[in-house]
């Protein structure tokens, strides 16, 4: 398989105007991923599937990841002169990162037997810009997995033929896999509670005690 950089160059050549970014992965797995821009994503995916050298005809895994608003603290070692002495000091910079939802696709090729190529798509934010282009027309295997991401993360896939909830019931309003989801409180009987469950069951005990 070509390296990720080569693929990126070829993709940019094939789909003019496409913005791509390689996201490095520092873990020993070394599975780096490619961030696509939403506007050209479907065209890029088609190219990946149909290109004679790549032929990623098989989208194995598709899932969502929730990244809430957060502050990224990065420590940089800076040399500073403090009290006249030059010292190495950690300088902590905090940058607020707005949250987003992410779709992750793991592509393999059954024809060429290579892979994985990891694609990522990101929504604008977690509230109102939660659209992503659907890859179901390109790879049918995304059909149920995109429905699942819609159900559990609340990502709306444009172009999906049948976007309904898949695991939860249709009347359900929440997106439970988001990090800020709070589950319904049914901790009436908790003989072995811990942490937040302990708090909740204590509330129940208190309520019961007043009755």
């Amino acid at each position, binding site marked *: 398989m070509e390296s990720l950089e080569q693929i990126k160059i070829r993709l940019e050549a094939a789909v003019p105007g496409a913005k791509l970014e390689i996201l490095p992965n520092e873990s020993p797995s070394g599975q780096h991923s490619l961030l696509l821009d939403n506007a050209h994503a479907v065209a890029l995916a088609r190219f990946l599937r149909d290109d004679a050298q790549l032929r990623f005809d098989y989208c194995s895994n598709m899932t969502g990841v929730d990244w809430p608003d957060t502050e990224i603290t990065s420590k940089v070692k800076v040399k500073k002169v403090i009290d006249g002495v030059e010292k190495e000091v950690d300088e902590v910079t905090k940058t607020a990162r707005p949250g987003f939802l992410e779709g992750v696709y793991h592509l393999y090729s059954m024809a060429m037997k290579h892979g994985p190529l990891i694609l990522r798509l990101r929504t604008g934010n977690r509230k109102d810009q939660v659209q992503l282009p659907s890859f179901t027309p390109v790879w049918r295997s995304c059909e149920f997995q995109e429905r699942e991401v819609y159900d559990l993360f609340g990502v709306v896939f444009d172009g999906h033929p049948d976007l309904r909830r898949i*695991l*939860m*019931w*249709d*009347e*359900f*309003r*929440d997106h*439970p896999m988001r990090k800020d*989801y709070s*589950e*319904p409180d*049914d901790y*009436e*009987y*908790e*003989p072995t*509670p811990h942490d937040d*469950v*302990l708090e909740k*069951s*204590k509330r129940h*005990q208190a309520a*019961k005690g007043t009755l």
Partner: protein
Amino acid sequence: MIEEGLKNELAKQGVVLTTLQELYNWGRGNSVWPLSFGLACCAIEMMAASMAKWDIARFGSEVFRPSPRQADLMIVAGTVTKKMAPQVVRLYNQMPEPKYVIAMGACAISGGPFKQGYNVLKGIDRLLPVDIHIPGCPPRPEALLHALITLQKKIEIEALTGPNRPRHLDADAPSEFPVPQFGEHDIVPAMNPLLWKPTQVVR
């Protein structure tokens, strides 16, 4: 086998009535047909119990009826999710009296390992009256047979009259239970307060 107090009560009722009662209890106790109804992992052990190695047929209970109308026993074998809970209650309501419920495995008793999940009902006894609980994840097939024997013993010594009479002979006791509806965040109601009376454990 029969307790002293019960024996005295039986003596009061007369021989014919007690014999009839014994015959009735013997009949329904030895012909417990389960509903073929599996939810999750425990269902496989339930099937294993009906297979050659343990053979639940020896107790006359291999007649797994697919239709609730012909079943006597509901083995809640596996995790009851909130999405499934209304169907479980509906199935129970469709069964004719006398009917029994065995909660097989940790999930059916309390939600078990999955009890922290947002879609998992924390025990079927919130919605249905459970006769026997089998702990284990999953319980061994022998444990299911043990539960069946326990249920048979329970049936065998049940008095058909008096305050401890079984539910199906009590005109005031309900034989159907409200089916929860799907709500926006949870099933409504999430439990039946008439049934679910947990003891208080202060922590």
